[in-house]
């Protein structure tokens, strides 16, 4: 016996050591790769790239509220000036003109390479004549007057053309020189971080920098006005940081509270510290082995797995409860062995049914779910094995827990009342409840599932509405529809972007779309620059053309000598490179539209709808791109694609869960060898699941993928309950009924406490899990108990 004991402990410790090493060396990721399908389509890959690093993911919307209009705009100006010096931000904008000296010089110097108007025709006599005529007309307008001093060098107005082509996006309203909401109640600014939106640590640092700059800006104001200005931030990065903090806070607080409650409960029951300590061994081993299994199976462990995994193997606490309470009935040296004979087969079967349920998560395309499945399977098997082999080996001599028979008798007494009903009426009640629940589910079938990814978002609707309001005020900041041009290098995607821009411009003219952004407007492809440069005439030709062009115009050709010199200089000048652009503030706009990953380059052309908030006809966009023969261009609707991705995960998970249920039924049929007993085990579980689903639907909740996981957990945990009742009903060698009942009640209480607390969290995914599992497991126990006792009374 002692040799066996030592062997068990050595094996256990060896496993623990291996698991610890695996866990310590595992790579943990918190980015969005949990949502990336294992084998993404190109569109899905683009979508995830967008969510991870795209320009939309890097936006932080900044609002300054309260205080008077003057202090708001002063805070905005100071805040933005500070942030512009911070390399954490690719760009910061509040409407203040920053076409700084450097930018203007860059644009002016390269105007004949950058302007879309430049071609051979432009520099013919006729072309020059109409361009110069337009420039002169401009001088009559106050806006054109600004360019008066540039006339001798830029008579064709190319600088104005370039500024036009860069400023095609609509601008937000301005008050006191800075962007403001339409009602003027808040000053607005937009920051774009250098780091991707999925880099939550970097986003968190950027947010801190904004808060610090705001505090400094407020400190510059006179004391009275300063006290009132308030800073509000929004955007994907802000949400990600808030969500992480919220989940961490909720997870820590809830695990502390539920830990205390469960420990108190177990102490009350066992009245033994040794039992408490030993009872936690299966859970701890299970958690460790679960993480190790995921690390081994997937290489990297997602944060989401760690977060939910612990709750999923909550079932393993039950094993030790069953062990301690039930083994008490056979006191003395042989207690553990008799428990092994009496109850271990039932627990093993319960564990295997749970494994069946969680195995249905394994084939999911959603890596987060896959990992949860593997984690739970590994954890449950480890916990069950520890309960079976290690706990008996560790049990000290004379180990005893408090006698819980009275609890079992009390509960049994309550159940006696159910016996007053006839078995048939119980069946009838169950059937009626099932029919009612199914009727509710059928009635709500269209809206039963929430098919939008936002179902998982921990961001409240208030925060989402605020975000939408800021975006509406800021114009087209919400990048929802994009044209993406892919290619092997920068030149190919810039060239593709130019072709796409031509196709899109026709849609703008037809008012199908309101506008678009284009990286090639900042930096044309080399091919385009070369063709513009070669379209510039030789000095002598240009002079001749110019002399002819100014005939009849109030401008003498000899005043335009600087123009001739500049054109000649450009003819021999180098082309503009990304490095030239890098020195200017324009590079931020350009960089935001270029996505470079490994060997893939993407140019982004975000689209704007013709009316604010309107829907873009994406099939028209796709058709225009096809007509324009733009290869490697794709239209992406970020929201629709991500919803489709999630919907796909959800549909898949529902199907696999049903398959898991079939497998579980088959397993029970093999183990119990009686369809009748299988029906008796499964009926309370199915009834509990449909009742909870119907209840949630009645409460106006749309079910998400986490509700589905919760339902799996009801079946997993509840199957143990049902199997115990089944064993008691069908075995002659039944153990102490009151003790079994007590064990089940204690196990269920700890589950209801732990999951019930999740329902009070602020995080929707935790609430989903809590509101499903807590009532579901309770109902499963109740239905199983009533069914069992009614079954007995029917037999009697």
């Amino acid at each position, binding site marked *: 016996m002692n040799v066996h004991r030592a062997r068990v402990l050595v094996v256990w410790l060896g496993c623990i050591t291996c698991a610890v090493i695996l866990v310590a060396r595992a790579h943990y990721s918190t980015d969005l790769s949990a949502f990336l399908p294992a084998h993404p389509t190109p569109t899905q890959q683009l979508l995830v790239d967008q969510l991870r690093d795209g320009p939309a993911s890097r936006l932080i919307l900044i609002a300054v509220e309260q205080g008077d209009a003057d202090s708001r705009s002063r805070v905005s100006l100071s805040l933005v000036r500070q942030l512009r010096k911070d390399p954490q931000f690719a760009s910061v904008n509040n409407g203040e003109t920053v076409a700084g000296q450097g930018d203007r010089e860059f644009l002016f110097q390269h105007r004949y390479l950058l302007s879309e108007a430049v071609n051979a025709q432009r520099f013919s006599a006729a072309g020059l004549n109409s361009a110069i005529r337009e420039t002169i007309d401009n001088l*009559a*307008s106050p806006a054109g007057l600004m360019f008066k001093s540039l006339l001798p060098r830029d008579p064709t107005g190319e600088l104005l053309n370039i500024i036009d082509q860069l400023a095609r996006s609509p601008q937000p309203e301005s008050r006191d*020189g800075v962007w403001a909401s339409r009602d003027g109640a808040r000053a607005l600014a937009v920051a774009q971080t250098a780091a991707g939106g999925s880099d939550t640590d970097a986003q968190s640092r950027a947010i801190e920098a904004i808060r610090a700059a705001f505090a400094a800006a407020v400190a510059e104001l006179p004391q009275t006005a300063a006290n009132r200005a308030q800073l509000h931030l929004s955007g994907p990065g802000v949400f990600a940081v808030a969500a992480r903090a919220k989940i961490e806070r909720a997870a820590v607080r809830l695990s502390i509270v539920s830990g205390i409650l469960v420990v108190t409960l177990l102490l009350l029951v066992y009245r033994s510290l040794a039992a408490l300590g030993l009872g936690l061994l299966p859970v701890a081993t299970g958690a460790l082995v679960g993480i190790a299994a995921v690390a081994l199976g997937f290489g990297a462990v997602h944060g989401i797995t760690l977060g939910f995994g612990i709750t999923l193997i909550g079932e393993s606490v039950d094993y030790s409860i069953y062990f301690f309470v039930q083994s008490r009935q056979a006191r003395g040296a042989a207690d553990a062995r008799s428990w092994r004979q009496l109850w271990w087969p039932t627990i093993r079967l319960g564990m295997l049914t749970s494994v069946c349920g969680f195995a249905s998560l394994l084939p999911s395309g959603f890596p987060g779910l896959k990992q949860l499945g593997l984690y739970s399977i590994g954890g449950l098997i480890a916990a069950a094995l520890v309960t079976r082999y290690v706990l008996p080996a560790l049990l000290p001599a004379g180990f005893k827990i408090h006698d819980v028979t009275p609890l079992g008798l009390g509960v049994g007494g309550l159940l006696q009342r159910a016996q007053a009903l006839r078995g048939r009426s119980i069946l009838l009640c169950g059937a009626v409840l099932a029919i009612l629940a199914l009727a509710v589910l059928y009635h709500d079938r269209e809206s039963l599932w929430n098919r939008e990814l936002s179902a998982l978002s921990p961001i409240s609707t208030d925060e989402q509405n605020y975000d939408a309001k800021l975006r509406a005020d800021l114009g087209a900041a919400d990048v929802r529809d994009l044209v993406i041009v892919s290619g092997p290098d920068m030149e190919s995607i810039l060239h593709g972007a130019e072709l796409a821009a031509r196709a899109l411009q026709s849609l703008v003219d037809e008012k199908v779309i309101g506008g678009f952004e284009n990286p090639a407007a900042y930096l044309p492809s080399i091919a385009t620059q070369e063709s513009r440069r070669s379209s510039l005439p030789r000095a002598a030709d240009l002079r001749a053309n110019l002399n002819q062009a100014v005939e009849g115009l109030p401008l003498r050709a000899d*005043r335009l000598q600087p123009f001739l010199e500049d054109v000649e200089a450009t003819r021999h000048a180098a082309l503009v490179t990304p490095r030239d652009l890098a020195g200017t503030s324009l590079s931020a706009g350009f960089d935001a539209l270029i996505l470079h990953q490994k060997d893939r380059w993407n140019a982004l052309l975000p689209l704007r709808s013709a009316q604010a908030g309107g829907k873009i006809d994406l099939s028209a966009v796709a058709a225009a791109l096809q007509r324009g023969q733009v290869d490697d261009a794709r239209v992406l609707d970020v929201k629709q694609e991500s919803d489709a991705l999630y919907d796909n995960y959800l549909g898949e998970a529902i199907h696999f869960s049903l398959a898991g249920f079939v497998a579980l039924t088959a397993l029970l049929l093999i183990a119990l060898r009686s369809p009748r007993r299988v029906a008796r085990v499964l009926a309370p579980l199915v009834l509990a699941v449909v009742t909870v689903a119907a209840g949630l639907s009645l409460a106006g909740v749309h079910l998400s993928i986490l509700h589905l996981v919760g339902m799996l957990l009801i079946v997993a945990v509840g199957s143990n309950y049902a199997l115990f009742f089944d064993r008691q009903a069908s075995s002659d060698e039944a153990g102490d009924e009151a003790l079994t009942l007590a064990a089940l009640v204690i196990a269920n209480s700890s589950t209801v406490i732990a999951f019930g607390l999740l329902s009070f969290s602020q995080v929707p995914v935790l609430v989903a899990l809590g509101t499903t599992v807590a009532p579901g497991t309770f109902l499963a126990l109740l239905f199983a108990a009533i069914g069992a006792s009614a079954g007995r009374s029917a037999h009697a």
Partner: protein
Amino acid sequence: MPRVLSFILLCVLSAIGNEPLRAATADLHDLDQVMGMLAMRQHGRVEFIEQHFLSVLSRPLESSGELRYDAPDRLEKRTLKPHAETLVLKGEELTVERAGRRHVMDLHAYPQVVPFIESIRATLAGDRKALERLFRLDFAGNVSRWTLTLQPLESKVKQSVSQVRIDGAQDQLLKVEIRQPDGDRSLMTLRPSTLP
């Protein structure tokens, strides 16, 4: 006691307030009267002919069209010749529309443009405060025939405009002359609209 205090305060305040007024009481009285008459008008519609005298050009540019004003802050300048162009100033937003293209500019971003537009709009609105924010005001003549000379206060504004001179009779503007620091100038002549 509080009553005595407030009496003293009132005396001090009125003494301070009266001081600059006394200097040019007659002129300013007429200015206020003109401003009052202008402020009464809710809508205005006149034709204009504008000439730009620019040193870079060998002859003046001439344009003509219609000027519309709607209280309190909307000014529309519709140029019909030689090319159609519409300029709408609403609040602090300037919209320029020409050749089917539309540009929206925030006036704050272009301080050099402000005096060209605000001088006319604030005068049409009879908004003396708005004028005084940007310019030093000089009023000559009387209500039936007056000249208002505006000189920019801010250095940024001074870079684009050195002086604006507005001639008027009662609540009608007759001529607006804008001089630039480099010697270039524009002259706008106004008369009641005969356009449909």
